[in-house]
């Protein structure tokens, strides 16, 4: 059984990147001149970030990105991954599903309404999708009632050993 422990660190790094990109996109939403991005017929960050669709109910999408990545970052801290509290793992899963639902909406909007693609936004979309992949495929293990309590199926002790199970038994 492989004992990979990459999920916490990978999700943490993805969250850090996503949070940084969201901060940058929030700044450039209000200061468009600060936006550094290739500009062509297909790729045009400014057209996307300054479009009417860049706000939902008056809230800039970039700020919604911040509202996603801040809690995601906290939920992807190693301590959160080690937690025996299922609510933390459930919250992480629900948040990632919400995130991937949001990016599906944003991708459709970019492709068919704005008709331009923002590369910075795309990088955030990819980050959110990768987070979803890791979290969704890991959730069957971390949502196990015995996870983190030392009562997992392998009878192993809690904490770090359980993280090893994430890559082994269930996947």
């Amino acid at each position, binding site marked *: 059984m492989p004992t990979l422990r990459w999920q916490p660190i990978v999700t943490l790094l993805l969250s850090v990147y996503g949070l940084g990109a969201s901060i940058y996109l929030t700044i450039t939403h209000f200061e468009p001149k600060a936006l550094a991005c290739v500009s*062509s017929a*297909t790729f045009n960050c400014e057209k996307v970030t300054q479009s009417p669709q860049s706000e939902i109910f008056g809230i800039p999408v970039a700020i919604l990105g911040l509202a996603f990545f801040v809690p995601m970052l906290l939920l992807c801290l190693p301590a959160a991954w080690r937690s025996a509290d299922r609510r933390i793992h459930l919250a992480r899963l629900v948040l990632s599903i919400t995130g991937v639902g949001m990016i599906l909406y944003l*991708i459709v909007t970019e492709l068919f309404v704005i008709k331009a693609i923002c590369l910075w936004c795309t990088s955030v979309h990819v980050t959110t999708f990768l987070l*979803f*992949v890791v979290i969704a495929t890991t959730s*069957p293990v971390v949502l196990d009632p015995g996870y983190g309590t030392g009562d997992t199926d392998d009878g192993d002790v809690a904490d770090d050993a359980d993280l090893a199970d994430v890559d082994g038994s*269930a996947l």
Partner: protein
Amino acid sequence: MTERGASRSAVLAWVAVVVILVGVVGLVVYAFSHAATPATVTQTARTSPAVLAAVSSVPQATFDEVGVTVPGAQLTPPEVLSGQPPLSSGGKPEVLAVGAEFCPFCAAERWPLVVALARFGRFSVLHDATSSEQSVFPGTPSFSFAGVRYASPYVAFTGVELYSDQVGADGTFIRIATLTPAQAALIARVAAGGGTSAGGTAPFVDVADRLVTTTSAFSPALLAGQSQAQIAGTVDSPAAPTAATGNASATVAPPTGQAVVAAANQLSAGICAADGQRPSAVCRSKGVRAADVSLGLPVPD
């Protein structure tokens, strides 16, 4: 959760991942294989802060001094509408401007419209545009209302640029927007019998159904030979037309600034008539009152 249950959940998770991935790839492939011509248009540059500031901060004294008088140039005033249902958006009177980036008369009309609207609110996003080099008055510097962002407590603004100033593969200007059914109906109604003799839609400026114009207030020739920044400078501090010095055959400088300011006073008068004469500093100013009188609009007390 048993090991078998966990495995089943893991399989479901991977199925969800694959379905989403395939769906996104499918959307991207479909979008690119059915790309319409608007996707090939490159958005023009943002208007420089200096130009935007110049057209947004014309001194009140300038509006009052110019009024609606333009020595050496003929103004075409907007037509006053009456008995029309008010045009509004979000509970505020709406100014609707329909034009095309290639169109020189639209280019000319955008100048006073931007100056007038800047008295009632603020443009946060405005792009540059020049009329087509293949048309009359080629390369007339102006703005584009494609992607415009404007906010005002008094009035709503909708800008529609139907065509780009770029030519597509078929040799025609690339269509970048379409009218909503309501906008098309409005233009048809106004053109058919609402008080204007022109049926064209570029430019079409409707100030809350109080004023409407289907041409530019002044000839684009007044803007010829000047850069956007130079025109903005004349608007910011217009002077009476003067002959250039040091040359016996000097020509008289065009009254560009006065024409823009005078036309802006007229459009401002229409907005004031629609929004309850607010703000008072604008609507009760000498320049707007002069426009009220010249257009036959009610003059506030």
